[in-house]
Structure formats: C-alpha cells, structure tokens
C-alpha cells in the first residue's frame, strides 16, 4: 500500500484550560515515503503534533492530513509503552493484527518475527509487569512494526535503550523501513539519532509552536550506526544543534 | 337481602360433560383452616360435581383477589373486610360462601393473665399489645375502646416467639394458629375472640369473579359437602396436610382442628352468610374510616342459585 503524506495546514490547537493555545496557524508537510525527525524542547508540543497527525486529537482550526482517515494504515509508538497488562508480550504485539482480523497462524508468525527483531523471543509468554522499562518499550516497538503501515509515528521510541541495543534497533528499523517505505514521523531528543535515521530534521520551538529550522539529511542509505562518528553526520548534527 | 340456611347435603348434581377447571387460591399456608377444600379434592367431591380443582397454596400477603382479577385463579379465599374494601376500590369479586362463622381473629394472652375478653386490656397498662398496627381490626379496637394513647401497640413479627418470651406481651392471633403453637411450646394461652368485641367479618370467604360464572352454584354446593365431610372426618385431609409440609406435625394439626371447630359452625351453621353479619362488617369498616359512610354490603355477597329449582 502507498505511503500517506502528512500535512498540517494553518492548524490551531489549545488544550482545555490551558492559558495559551499550543498551535496557531501551524504548518508542516511531510511527503509520502519520507522520514521526518522532530526535535524540540521538552513540553513544546511534539507529542501533541503526533496525536494530531494520527487523528487522536482534532485541530480546532485548520486541517491535518491524514488524521483519522489513516485508521488501520497507521502504526504508532507512544511515549510510554502503553501495553495491556492482562496480555502476554506476544498477545500485546499481535494486537494490531488481531484487530484487523488476521488469522491466528499468520499472526503467530508475524509476532514471532517482530519479537525476534526486538530480541524479546524469550519473554514472549511473560506479562508486561515482569519486564524492565527498556524491554517494555521494545514490546511497543514490536507492536508498531508487526504490520506494514502506511504511516509510522514514533514518540521517542529508543530513549529507554542502551547504546548498543539502540544501535541494533536502528539497523532493524532501517531494514524494515526500506521494505515498506511508509511515511515516518520520529520524535527524538537525540540529534545524532535524528540525523542518522531521518531524511529531514525539523526543529520545533516557541509558543505557539513553530518550525524553527529544517535540515535536510542527504546521507546515503542504508546508514549503519557506526556512521555516527563520520564527519558528514557530525556536521549535520552541529547544524541542527545550532537551532536548538 | 337473601339469607340462607347452611347448604343441605343434597345429592350430587349430575356431573358436567367435561370437568370445569377451577384454580382455588388460598390466602395462607395449607393448614387445617382449608381442610374442607383439600377434603373436596381428596374425597372426590369436586370431581363428582364436575370440577377439576387445583389448590394454589398461599402465604403472608398472598394476593388472592388479584390473582382472581388477573385470571390466574377462578376462585379465591379472602376475608370479608378485605373483599369489601377492595370492592370499593374496584375489585370485581363477589363472596359466595363462608367457611368460618366466627372470625378466627382475636388476641392471645397467657392463661394466668386474668384477661377474660379483649376489652379488659384497657385496665392493664403494663401489657403491650403486638398487633398489625394500622390494620382495620386494630383501629376498630382502639376506636371502640378509646385506647388511643392508653394501650400500647407494638408491631407483630408474624411469630409467636416474642409472646412466649415476654410475659408482658399479648398478641393479635388467629385461633387456627398461635394458640396451638404456644401450647406446644409450653405456655398455656387463652384466646380472646374478636367477635365478642363486635368485630366479626367472615374470615375465610370463597370469592369468585363478579358476575359469577355459571358453574359457581354447583361449585358452592360441592364445597359445602366437602366441608361437611371434613368436619365429620378430618383425618384424611389432615394427613395430606402433614404429608405436604413436614414442619406441620400431626399434634399441631390435631390441636388446630379442634380449636377451629366451634368457629366453623358458629350459630348460623357451616357456610352460611347473613345480611346482618355483612352489614355489621360494613358498619365496622365505615366506623374505622375504611369504607365511605354510604357503603353497603349490597352485591358484595350472594347466595348462588343454580337454577330456579335449586333450594
């Protein structure tokens, strides 16, 4: 299926009881099949943007695409693992497929593969309460990756992981990405990570929220984690950091 | 107004071609006070008269007239006062026969209390009277004797236990119930009749829909015969009652049967209803304000005539 473009047009949004609106006339476009990294200070509104893009929140002014129309073709990693406490790890990962009516056998294979990607085959039958914080987050990653979405939205998916595990997850994510080429939105606090993974880094800031800068990343793909120490990447990182 | 002698034990009417189904709703547990009805079924009297009778036992609060009204019973047992009050409220039921000539209602006291009649309670402020507060009977007593504020009424608990435990208690009772229980529990009671105080509505009235269906005269006749048979030989029906309820031991049944006998026949004889008695009940109910002052017993009861040829 084709990737879905993301577009914010003249978007206005305020949380109830908030003193000032979070967004006013906000605009941003992400062409189909590109991966955009969003960086910006804590509390500036990144998660809110993702919720708007996924249609979990409705803008009070303007238009957001795809919004709710993407339902079923969308995958999201929330900032918190957001697992269902009564389901095993495998059943948590299989949830999106179950909701789409994928038959059990096919589901089992897909789940096993997704768990393999995040290195959690061993705890497939454990309940979320018996996992460490980083393991829970990886379950959430597997749940988002278990299907081939048209739009993939991830809110700091790798923040809870150590450097090495994170590096392997980068590779797995990029392989997956190349397979389906969905549109991607990635919120991260790690500028290295943003530059390494994204086609473009958007620096956000201010209230109402605005785009402070956009930095295109034209490094060749696939990009291994070791690229991190390359000067080309370092230059881009410094370019982004200059706007933060 | 019609008046009648006790229905004579005339020979059985020719059985109807197909048996008429009659569901008879009782207003209390199956006990000797309904012995005649059970005898009618067991002894085949009803069957011979062309009736297939099904007895629906009741209990406290059994809505018998309501079952009649709802078409879930063809005949219902109720009390005359209840029938009169409900008729004024629109119930379409009419009394056609009365099992007890004297009301079974009264007051139970200890034999050593020195009480002779209910009215004596007026001079005994140390005694509490457990009674259905607000019931027509209670209101009648208090009004007639001017006991308001003088005699202490407390709610009954539906059991004679409190009476047995508390010597300062006298209790509203049915002659067919509490006296025998009290005696069996080792307290010798005396039963003070309500009828002596002018409260004497027929207590166990057979009611049918108003206007009564055509089968009623034959049914009444059969009932009268069944009851006569029961009074003469209660053993068979009583055995059935004991069989149905293993908490009802034979001694208790025997006691009740003896206690109720004089109340069944009274002075007018088994089954009779007289205009004077009905009017007396109406007047009593008017006095306590349960019936409108212009109420009359007219139409509340009839003596069913099978045909012009019937007695």
């Amino acid at each position, binding site marked *: 299926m084709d990737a879905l473009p993301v577009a914010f047009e003249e978007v206005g949004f305020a949380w109830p009881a908030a003193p000032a609106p979070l967004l006013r006339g906000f605009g941003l476009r992400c062409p189909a099949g590109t991966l955009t990294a969003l960086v910006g200070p804590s509390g500036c509104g990144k998660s809110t943007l993702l919720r708007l893009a996924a249609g979990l929140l409705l803008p009070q002014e303007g238009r957001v695409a795809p919004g709710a129309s993407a339902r*079923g073709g969308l995958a999201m990693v*929330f900032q918190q693992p957001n697992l269902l*406490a009564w389901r095993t790890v495998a059943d948590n990962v299989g949830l999106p497929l179950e*909701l789409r009516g994928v038959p059990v056998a096919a589901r089992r294979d897909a789940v096993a593969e997704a768990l393999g990607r995040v290195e959690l085959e061993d705890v497939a039958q454990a309940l979320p309460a018996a996992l460490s914080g980083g393991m829970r987050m990886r379950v959430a990653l597997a749940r988002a990756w278990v299907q081939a979405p048209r739009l993939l939205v991830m809110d700091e998916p790798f923040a809870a992981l150590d450097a090495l595990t994170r590096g392997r997850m980068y590779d797995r994510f990029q392989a997956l990405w190349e397979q389906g080429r969905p549109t991607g939105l990635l919120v991260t606090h790690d500028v290295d990570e943003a530059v390494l993974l994204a086609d473009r880094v958007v620096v956000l800031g201010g209230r109402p929220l605005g785009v402070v800068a956009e930095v295109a990343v034209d490094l060749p793909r696939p990009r291994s984690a070791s690229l991190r120490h390359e000067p080309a990447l370092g230059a881009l990182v410094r370019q982004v950091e200059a706007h933060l | 107004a019609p008046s009648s002698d006790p229905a004579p034990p005339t020979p059985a009417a020719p059985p109807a071609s197909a048996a008429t189904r009659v569901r008879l709703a009782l207003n209390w*547990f199956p006990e000797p006070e309904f012995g005649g009805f059970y005898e009618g079924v067991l002894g085949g009297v009803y069957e011979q008269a062309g009736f297939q009778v099904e007895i629906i036992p009741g209990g406290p609060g*059994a809505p018998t007239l309501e079952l009649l009204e709802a078409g879930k019973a063809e005949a219902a047992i109720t009390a005359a006062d209840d029938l009169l009050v409900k008729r004024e409220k629109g119930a379409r039921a009419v009394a056609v026969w009365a099992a007890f000539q004297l009301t079974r209602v009264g007051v139970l006291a200890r034999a050593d209390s020195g009480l002779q009649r209910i009215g004596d309670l007026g001079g005994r402020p140390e005694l509490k009277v457990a009674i259905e507060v607000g019931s027509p009977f209670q209101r009648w007593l208090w009004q007639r004797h001017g006991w308001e504020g003088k005699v202490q009424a407390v709610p009954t608990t539906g059991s004679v*236990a409190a009476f047995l435990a508390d010597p300062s208690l006298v209790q509203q009772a049915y002659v067919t119930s509490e006296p025998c229980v009290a005696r069996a*529990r080792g307290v010798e009671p005396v039963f003070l009749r309500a009828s002596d105080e002018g409260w004497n509505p027929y207590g166990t009235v057979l009611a049918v829909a108003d206007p009564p269906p055509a089968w009623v005269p034959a049914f009444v006749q059969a009932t009268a015969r069944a009851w006569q048979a029961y009074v003469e030989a209660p053993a068979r029906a009583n055995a059935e009652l004991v069989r149905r309820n293993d*908490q009802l031991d034979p001694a208790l049944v025997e006691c009740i049967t003896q206690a109720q006998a004089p109340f069944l026949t009274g002075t007018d004889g088994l089954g009779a209803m007289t205009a004077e008695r009905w009017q007396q009940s109406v007047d009593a109910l008017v006095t306590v304000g349960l019936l409108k002052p212009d109420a009359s017993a007219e139409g509340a009861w009839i003596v069913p005539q099978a045909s012009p040829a019937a007695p």
Partner: protein
Amino acid sequence: MIPDVSRHPRLPAALTALALLLVWALVAVRTSPLLLPGPLAVLRAAWSARQALAEATLHTGLAAGAGLVLATGLGLVGAVAFHLSRTLELALYPYALLLQTLPIVAVAPLLVVWLDYGTPVAVASAALVSFFPVLTAGHLGLRAATVEQVELFSLYGASTAQELLLLRLPAGLPTLFAGLRAAGGLAVIGAVVGEFVGSNGVPRSLGYQVLYAARTAEPALSFAAIGCAAALSLGLFVVVRLGERRLIGRWHAAGGAA
C-alpha cells in the same frame, strides 16, 4: 507458638468460626431460646430437618444463581448500552437505581400475579436486587481503561465491539468483580425474600422454611434455614472469587504495567 498464617490460610477463619460459636452460645444462654436459640439447638434442628433444608437450599440456590446470572447479563448489557450512548445513560441510569429501591416485600405480590408463584418470583426478585450493583460496577469498569489505551485501539481502527471486548471489558474486570461479590449475597437474600411471598406454600425453599419456622415458633429451624442461606452466599462468593482469580488473578495481582 503462633502458626504461620500464610501457610494455613484457612486457620483464622476456622478460629473465628469457633469464637463466633462460643459468643453465640454465651449470648444464647442469657437470652430466651425462643428469640435466640443456641448453636446446638440450631444444629439439632438442622439435622432433624436435613432433607427439607437440603432440598430448600438447592432450590433457593438455583433461584439465586439464576437471578445473579440474569442480573449480571442484564447489568453488563446495561453498562455497555450506557457506555455506548450517553443519551441512554442520562435517560435510564437514574431509573435503574429505582429498581433496587423497590421493597421486594411490597413488590412481590405484583410479581406473583405477573410471573406466577414459585421459582419465577424468587429468580426475579434475586435479579432485581442484584442488578444495580452489577450495573454500577460494570459502568465504572468500562471506564477503567486509560486514555492512551483507548487511543491505541482507535488508532488501529478497532471496531466498537473490539474496543469493548478486548480493551474495556478486561480492563474493567477488577471493578466488575467487586460488584459481583456484593451482588452474590444480595441475590441470595433477594431470592429468600421473594420466596417469602411467592413460595406457594411448597416447603421446597429457604424463604418458606424461614417463614414457616417463624410461624410455628421454631427459631432454631429458622436460624438453621438462615444458616443455609448464609452458606449459599458464601458459595456464590467463592464462585465469584474463583472466577476472579481465573480471569484476572495473574495480571491484576501483578499491579499492572503502563
């Protein structure tokens, strides 16, 4: 030498039972046996009426169980309906409360006329009494899922039925079971009180036994029958707890995970 409670979880309850029996016996000795028969008298009465009591307990137990099942079914349907339609909730919730307020003793005659004597009245009155706790618990339980979990489901295009069955219901089970625990005992009492009026004079129900024992001034038998009703409640309670442990024990005890 205090025995370890965690090794003998039944011990305290057994000791309490003993203590209660003792207190009961002591109080009974000082009270008239007509008002409060002693434990031995009750036991004797229970033994001599064992067959009738056993039959009655079975009978009432079935009525209470059926009433509870009915109430649970209807309560859940009601909770789901209220969950799906705020208008329906606003329109009906206050009146659901009224169902519980009707004094069964006063309503039973109506039930008798509408439903016929006997078991139907007992079942209806058990259901009537236990309906509201289930409804309330279900209603609250369906809102127990977190905002983010609901978002997750809507994100993946879950149908309303899927959201209910796979999210709201499991997330609400702990709350629902709290309601069911209370409802179980209520169903038994509802059945017994329904039988007071609707027993149809057939001695095959605990309601009849309680009442008739009062009528014949056999408090020991009355207490024995009440004891059977209590045992029934305990039985229903245990059934509910077993269901609870089976369905939510594993994850709920674990304290959940975000």
